[in-house]
């Protein structure tokens, strides 16, 4: 897996501690994320991954330290599950078009040509062009997550935050979605933060991992091999070397 190009970082965390109600739940994190990188955020259930994600999304402030964003930062977010009400008739194309409005642009009477072009480009990038005419409610989970990925790409982001995008998918659908994520990363202009429970996904699709645990006050970053060789990883996951190798560590 190639290393990220050394350009100005998209995100810099300087001794940033995430938490809520004024109380840090994770130790301070120092981290830089560059374009062309996939950082897998791993940890057990309730380890503080979602709190960290909410902080990175700007939905809650860091308790200590700071987050420095690139001046041109544009964030795309793919939720764990994309809820579209089954009764609402909505084609994938319309679902993507809905994501083109930002700020007050909905006041314009018509969707611009440029917005439609962005939708077409995002659909092509996420390999859902053939699904544009389908009803969202009739997509399989895997197709829906790829469409959700396209939706995040509509705003031409350079930072993608993916919240366990494959947790509801079977292995085949998971690989299809992650191959699209890999393709986006290889494009070199997007940095990706991927929350995952799967060590296999972290081991095979991330350039770096960030292991967190609020109970043991762990926030450790490095390559998958480095982190998985550490005592914290062994204690939290209780895996043998052989099992870690099966995860695809490299």
């Amino acid at each position: 897996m190639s290393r990220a190009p050394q350009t100005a970082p998209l995100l810099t965390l300087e001794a940033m501690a995430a938490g809520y109600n004024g109380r840090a739940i994770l130790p301070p994190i120092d981290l830089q994320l560059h374009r062309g990188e996939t950082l897998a955020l791993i940890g057990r259930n309730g380890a503080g991954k979602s709190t960290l994600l909410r902080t990175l999304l700007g939905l809650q402030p860091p308790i200590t330290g700071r987050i420095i964003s690139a001046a041109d930062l544009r964030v795309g977010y793919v939720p764990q599950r994309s809820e579209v009400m089954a009764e609402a008739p909505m084609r994938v194309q319309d679902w993507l078009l809905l994501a083109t409005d930002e700020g007050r642009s909905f006041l314009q009477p018509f969707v611009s040509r440029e917005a439609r072009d962005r939708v077409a480009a995002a659909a092509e990038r996420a390999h859902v062009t053939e699904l544009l005419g389908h009803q969202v409610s009739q997509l399989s989970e895997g197709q829906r997550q790829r469409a959700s990925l396209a939706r995040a790409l509509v705003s031409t982001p350079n930072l993608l935050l993916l919240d366990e995008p494959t947790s509801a998918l079977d292995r085949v659908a998971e690989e299809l979605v992650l191959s699209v994520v890999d393709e986006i990363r290889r494009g070199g202009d997007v940095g990706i933060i991927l929350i995952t429970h799967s060590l296999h996904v972290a081991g095979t699709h991330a350039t770096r991992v960030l292991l967190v645990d609020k109970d043991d006050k762990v926030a450790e970053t490095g390559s998958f091999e480095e982190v998985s060789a550490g005592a914290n990883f062994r204690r939290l996951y209780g895996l043998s070397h052989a099992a870690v190798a099966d995860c695809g560590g490299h």
Partner: protein
Amino acid sequence: MAQPVSDFFAAWELFRDPALAGAVSGLLLGWVGVYVALRRMVFLSAAMTQTAGLGVMLAQWAAATFALTGLLASPTLWAVAFSGGAAAALAGSERLRIGRDQLLGGLYLMGAAGAILVGSKVAIDAHDVETVLFGSAVAVAPEDFQRLLTTAVLLLCLHLWLRRGFIAVSFDAEGAAARGLPVGVLKVVLLATIALAVSVATRTIGALPVFAFSTLPALAASRLCPSLGTTLPVAALLGAAAGFGGYLAAFVWELPVGASQTAVALSLWACAELVRLALRR
């Protein structure tokens, strides 16, 4: 014994305002009903129509008891205040720490029982109470029709203009907030317009057909249309058809108007379901 349809159009001057009031109400409520029905807020509409009905009855009671006149005695204003209050309570249900379903049920029952109780204390006969609750009025006062028409034109223009914002906050509120849309303002405006539409229409044609028009045309249109962009106008047209067709059917078969309009709306929904099933095969 059925009346010939030609008799209806022969007496068009007489039936024009109530028949068109049904059509205009259906048009307006069909459109706004898409947000109600497809967001699974059907009982929001039920609660709002019933509280609007209570507002109408209370206006009459207050006018008689306190000799109120002018705006203070306006049934439409009271209906707007009550349904708006219901909408505000629902919007703030989390702050009130009351479950949304429980609040809807409470508001519905308060409106329905309250209108009957207040009606029993007002110097009007039971038929007038039925008119408010079930829309059994054969005639509509010209000023009520004018008010309905003006409200419908203004609200439909506003909905046409803000439709992308309303769709975004109704079906993708989290994403809309992340993209910087003014979600709170749009939600308040949407609820306020639904409350206004429901109130003015309830005052004019009664609670039962208003509830029917704000749910059934949207459900029917959603079965026939591929997108929300087409569902909105088709629901409005189906609502207008139910309003006018229901009034015509009431004339032909001598039926209560509100129930007849509701039955036509139900038939359109059933037809849409059948068409969808046929297309699936």
